[in-house]
């Protein structure tokens, strides 16, 4: 029994804005997701890679600013001279820059495309080098650890989001409120999107700011001003299709486990098929005279893997993939997939009121 039962009382207070009403669905969804211990663990785990990349940024800036004895020794050995020109805290010597690139390459040897660091060192401009190295690190950060964590987190949180509403016939509870179907959809999309922002956009921006704080002066902002936009673009390229596709799977069934299975199957099988094509041809691409045609062949097949397709566009956004035309199929596939998923999803969530 209530301590002080006031009975029914009319309500005459102010109401929130219609435009933000969908956020209520998002808030409730995020709170519900965080009730799961596994989601909390996955979120925590998703933040761990930033330590590694943060350390790499720190090392790079330190080497640029204050070359270690080890690097100087290496430099002396390679150049055959004790002379080392360091002006105002910046390395001016090409060999020394290459040594730094090698150091970084060794540190990131476990990541593909690490030869991009050597290419970066080939430039004679420290500012360009910094931009390229930061781009590489951010691209790798978003592509590999965060890409895999995105796959896992979406698999954990998205499958029940709409399938639960289908099973418990909750649609009428939503639609009988002053919200539209589009707002319902926006609220649902924003649940995984906001969690994925937390593990991709936020740490990547943090990494960028960390780099800025370690930089010798504020002019670095002018050298790297485009990187935040590239981060936003790369995050959006990942989050939009991923959220729409996973929600579509969720809307197609009453059983969230089927939606989860479909999600992991699409990612897993696609990636396995692509790796089966890519790995045998990797050596040929490096060594063969017709390496370019093999590369074209494998890049065409990369469309079978959603993970690889997103990665290629992200690489292009960070400048690691130079040729725009080569990523057009990937970009087109992501756009088509997003549009089809959205249209189908809208149709699915409209179905309960059509009958």
């Amino acid at each position: 029994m209530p301590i002080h039962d006031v009975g029914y009382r009319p309500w005459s207070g102010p109401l929130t804005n219609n435009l933000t009403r969908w956020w209520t669905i998002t808030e409730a969804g995020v709170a519900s997701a965080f009730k799961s211990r596994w989601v909390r663990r996955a979120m925590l785990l998703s933040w761990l890679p930033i330590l590694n990349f943060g350390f790499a940024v720190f090392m790079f800036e330190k080497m640029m600013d204050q070359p270690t004895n080890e690097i100087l020794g290496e430099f002396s050995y390679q150049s055959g001279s004790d002379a080392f020109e360091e002006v105002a805290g910046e390395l001016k010597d090409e060999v020394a820059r290459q040594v730094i690139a090698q150091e970084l390459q060794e540190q990131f040897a476990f990541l593909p495309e690490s030869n991009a660091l050597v290419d970066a060192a080939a430039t004679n401009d420290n500012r360009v080098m910094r931009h390229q190295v930061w781009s590489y690190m951010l691209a790798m950060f978003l592509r590999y650890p965060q890409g895999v964590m995105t796959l896992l987190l979406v698999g954990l949180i998205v499958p029940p989001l709409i399938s639960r509403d289908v099973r418990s016939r909750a649609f009428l509870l939503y639609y009988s409120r002053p919200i539209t179907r589009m707002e319902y959809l926006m609220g649902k999309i924003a649940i995984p999107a906001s969690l994925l922002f937390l593990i991709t956009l936020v740490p990547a921006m943090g990494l960028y700011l960390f780099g800025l704080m370690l930089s010798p002066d504020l002019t670095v902002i002018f050298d790297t001003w485009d990187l935040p936009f590239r981060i936003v673009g790369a995050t959006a390229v990942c989050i939009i299709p991923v959220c729409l596709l996973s929600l579509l799977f969720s809307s197609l069934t009453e059983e969230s486990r089927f939606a989860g299975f479909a999600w992991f199957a699409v990612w897993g099988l696609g990636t396995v098929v692509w790796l089966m094509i890519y790995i045998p041809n990797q050596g040929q691409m490096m060594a063969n005279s017709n390496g370019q045609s093999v590369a074209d062949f494998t890049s065409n097949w990369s469309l079978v893997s959603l993970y690889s397709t997103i990665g290629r566009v992200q690489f292009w956004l960070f400048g690691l993939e130079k040729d725009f035309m080569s990523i057009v199929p990937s970009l087109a596939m992501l756009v088509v997939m997003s549009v089809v998923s959205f249209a189908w999803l809208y149709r699915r969530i409209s179905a309960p009121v059509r009958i």
Partner: protein
Amino acid sequence: MSHLIELRNIQKNYHRMMALCDVSLSISPGITGLLGPNGAGKSTLIKVLMGLVKTNKGSGTVLGYELGKQGRQIRALVGYMPEDDCYITGMTGIEMVRFSACLAGIPTVEALRRAHEILDFCGVHQERYRSVEGYSTGMRQKTKFAAAIVHDPQFLILDEPTSGLDPEEREALLNRVRILCQRFGKSALISTHILPDVQSICEHVIILSNGKVRVADRLATLNQSNSNFQVLTFVDNAQQAAQWLVADGFAAELQPDNSIRLALDTAEDFDRLWKSCNEQGFIVRSLTPTRNSIEEIFMAAIQGESHAHS
């Protein structure tokens, strides 16, 4: 009296099936019962009223807002309790009601306070902290009702509100509807198959069948019989009185409750009855016209429809 809802020639088709056919009706303030057999078009009518489905033809207003164009405004003023066993999974009772309040636009902190108040009003006590999935049917009904009224709607649409409730809970829920309508000036449309609920609470009745409105009137008016049958009760000796009336040429029939149902066509018949009773010493307690029960009204409406079809 101004009407809350006015529909004019509403037609709704689902592909080739006509769910609502030329529906025109007005709903006045108060409690209105919406009756009809399964598939009559009740759920479609409710969805039309809330602006959830577009009509193929016709127009109308709900609470002053135009159907089909101002659905959001309509839904802000309507509290809907769905028929289905529907709930939002992963939430406790209090979370579900608070969530409903937030969706209706009540700020978060106020929504929580109000959700507690409404759950108190609906008789949901400590169970409010349990997950809705574990609720009994009755608890879910109460929680759905709480979610429907948490934003203080002007008009309630209750779809089978008492199904699955035990008699005590059923009476309690109907009482809550009465309180809301009588003390707080709300109006309600109750769609139900439980006819005694309609008889006990509703002022108006709408009967739908095959997508058409068969009956739409005040319940008191419908209860008045058009027949010439009267119900006669005596202080005692009802059995003897019945035998004597039959012997005297009246079409009289003794009912199980010791009342006598008899046909009186003209004023002369009434005079003859009074004289006979007086002469025989039968003391009349009451003489009232027979009333149509809601079951009779419903069956007459439905059978009228089936006769029309045959």
